[in-house]
């Protein structure tokens, strides 16, 4: 069953950052030529791969945790409505207010209205994929509200007028020298003697943001988890910028995708082991904040939770693809992906890059709006191996390719070719004829062991960079049949 058939809307176009303006192969072609990007990504991903492997290897029960992580998410999705209602009840009972947003437009409007009601003209933000997805910063800006990103990597991206390229480390495509240059250029009062030492750069960010934290009246966050039975929200972070935002302002607005709910408190014991080891390669991230509603005398006294759909229910409608909603945004799949490692995140055009992005973005927008992404994988399977909740990304990629092919109303040359080939491969007689025709290619080689480079498309896309051996005069099955004719 598909969302289109059921009439469930996908994420609307024209708002947010789920759609690129170019196809993946076109964007990738350009990224591949960027030697600095390739070097930065190669260095960063190999570093994190080794760290992850070491801390995952420490746990003798990783496979069991992974299976529990998968099973809890599957069970949650099967009763998603009930868990969301329970969450709403618990958050409300503890002094919070719950809002429901059908899509990016509605979520942006709710948040803007809530900020305006406080009279504030600026907000501090904890890194959040959901607010990136809906383009909240742009919406706030249009309403005259300045949003300050406070995560170091988000800050680098914001100051550099850049786009995030990784789920966990949005500035992974920048190296220390480039970050130093951005800071010197854009941070008012930056120390001109600032070096490219990561510690010094982190300290520069600390100084830059300190005063903003202390004066902030409104904070906006995402959520890693929300516990339905208790109304507890969780934000997992490292730098302490999250704690600043979740603790100091009077008003906290949390925007959360509806798939982030987990049924019980106990479920966190699984994810708080899976997530840090998979994402930063640490046994535990430095800070995890958990809160339920409002606590008198401690932290924000006004708390709003915005529950966001924006295409998630459309994903849920696909029995194969819905597993993509299990993602806990660790980004381990990006770090092991040979495609991501070479093209970087911008080539995917969506805030969700890499293997998980290649199955999530097309489902949130409808496959036709991100039709090249399901093909942006060699199906090597490394992503499935490292996924802490065992999302079978390669199978979903293949499924989405079929959804794309089957959605075509006009017959493409590719479809003609594949249908003809299907006919041939289904009939021994036709197949032998087709093989014989392929064997005729040997005459193009004029006696050489490889075919000429200049062949018509689509063969040329192969022969541009690789030789193709000259086909033999006879196939193996043909020879064998001749030898064994009784």
């Amino acid at each position, binding site marked *: 069953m598909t969302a289109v058939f059921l009439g469930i809307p996908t994420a609307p176009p024209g708002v947010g950052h789920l759609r690129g303006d170019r196809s993946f192969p076109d964007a990738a072609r350009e990224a591949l030529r960027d030697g600095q990007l390739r070097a930065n990504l190669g260095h960063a991903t190999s570093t994190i791969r080794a760290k992850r492997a070491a801390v995952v290897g420490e746990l003798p029960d990783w496979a069991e945790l992974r299976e529990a992580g998968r099973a809890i998410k599957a069970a949650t999705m099967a009763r998603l409505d009930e868990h969301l209602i329970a969450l709403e009840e618990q958050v409300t009972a503890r002094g919070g207010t719950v809002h429901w947003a059908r899509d990016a437009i509605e979520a942006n409007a709710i948040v803007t209205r809530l900020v305006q009601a406080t009279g504030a003209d600026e907000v501090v933000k904890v890194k959040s994929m959901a607010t990136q997805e809906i383009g909240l910063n742009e919406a706030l800006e249009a309403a005259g509200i300045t949003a300050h990103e406070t995560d170091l990597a988000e800050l680098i991206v914001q100051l550099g007028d850049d786009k995030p390229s990784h789920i966990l480390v949005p500035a992974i495509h920048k190296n220390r020298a480039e970050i130093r240059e951005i800071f010197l250029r854009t941070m008012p009062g930056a120390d001109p003697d600032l070096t490219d030492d990561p510690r010094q750069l982190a300290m520069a960010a600390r100084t830059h943001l300190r005063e903003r934290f202390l004066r902030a009246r409104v904070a906006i966050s995402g959520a890693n988890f929300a516990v339905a039975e208790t109304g507890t929200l969780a934000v997992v972070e490292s730098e302490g910028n999250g704690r600043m935002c979740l603790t100091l302002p009077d008003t906290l607005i949390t925007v959360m995708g509806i798939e982030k709910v987990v049924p019980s408190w106990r479920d966190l014991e699984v994810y708080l082991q899976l997530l840090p080891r998979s994402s930063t390669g640490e046994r535990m991230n430095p800070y995890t904040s958990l809160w339920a509603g409002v606590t008198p005398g401690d932290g924000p006294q006004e708390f709003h939770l915005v529950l966001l759909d924006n295409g998630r229910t459309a994903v849920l409608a696909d029995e194969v693809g819905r597993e993509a909603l299990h993602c806990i945004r660790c980004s381990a799949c990006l770090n092991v992906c040979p495609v991501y490692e070479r093209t970087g995140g911008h080539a995917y055009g969506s805030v969700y890059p890499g293997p998980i992005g290649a199955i999530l973005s097309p489902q949130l927008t409808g496959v036709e709006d991100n039709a090249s992404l399901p093909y942006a994988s060699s199906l090597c399977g490394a992503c499935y191996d490292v996924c802490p909740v065992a999302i079978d990304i390669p199978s979903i990629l293949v499924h989405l390719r079929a959804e794309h092919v089957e959605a075509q109303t006009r017959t493409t040359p590719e479809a003609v070719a594949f249908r003809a080939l299907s006919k041939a491969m289904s009939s021994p007689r036709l197949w032998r004829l087709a093989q014989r025709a392929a064997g005729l290619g040997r005459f193009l080689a004029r006696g050489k062991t490889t075919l000429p480079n200049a062949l018509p498309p689509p063969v040329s896309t192969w022969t541009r960079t690789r030789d193709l051996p000259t086909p033999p005069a006879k196939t*193996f099955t043909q020879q064998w*049949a001749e030898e064994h004719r009784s």
Partner: protein
Amino acid sequence: MKVALFATCLVDTLTPQVARATATLLQRLGHEVVVPPGQSCCGQMHVNTGYRREAVPIVANHVRAFAGALSSGVEAIVAPSGSCVASIHHQQAAVARRAGEHQLADDAAALAERTFELSQFLVDVLGVTDVGAYYPHRVTYHPTCHSLRLLRVGDRPLQLLRAVRGLDLVELPGADQCCGFGGTFAVKNADTSTAMLTDKMTDVLSTHAEVCTAGDASCLLHIGGGLSRLRSGTRTVHLAEILASTEEAVTPQQSTTPAVTA
């Protein structure tokens, strides 16, 4: 044992020497080899490119071609390709079932249980690691993605290679990295595919091996196509060809021609 050989469409059409080597090897080990004449393709390329409906008749053809073999006393089906065997195990029944062809799905699943990738068949079913091969060359082994992650062949190919007399096995750096083939990925995302291939070739060439081997002819076609274009001199040879080689069938002087000619 009576064994049916599934040559696979790519090997049959482009690199018949790989299927010949597989047959020769199995015969040398004392097994009877049959090659069902109606065979064509497992359907993987169609499934992986999005043509899962069009894959169903291909699966049906495969089942027709091999079901007869089983009823005539064949105990196992062997293919010199991790990728095709993985498709037979993980995809065939699923696409048939999705199309509502439940009988076909059941039949495909039953065939899959008897279908083995060459190294798994040798080590797990036949229980041999020393197949009596001789191959006096410096060789590095690329564990192709589907053999590694879908079939979990593990170090079986390496066990087999270590037992080959005269063979100097050198470890491939970054071995578990994809070569960038990925079926139609190599064409639809030719630039990214080439970038991956370049890095794979860099690792292969760093070993100074004469030969890069693997259990998948498709990945070898890709790596070998790149190495050939660079005139590197390092060539790709399928695992089956190495295992089929003996003192009688190959000498160092003949090293640039296939061990077992097709």
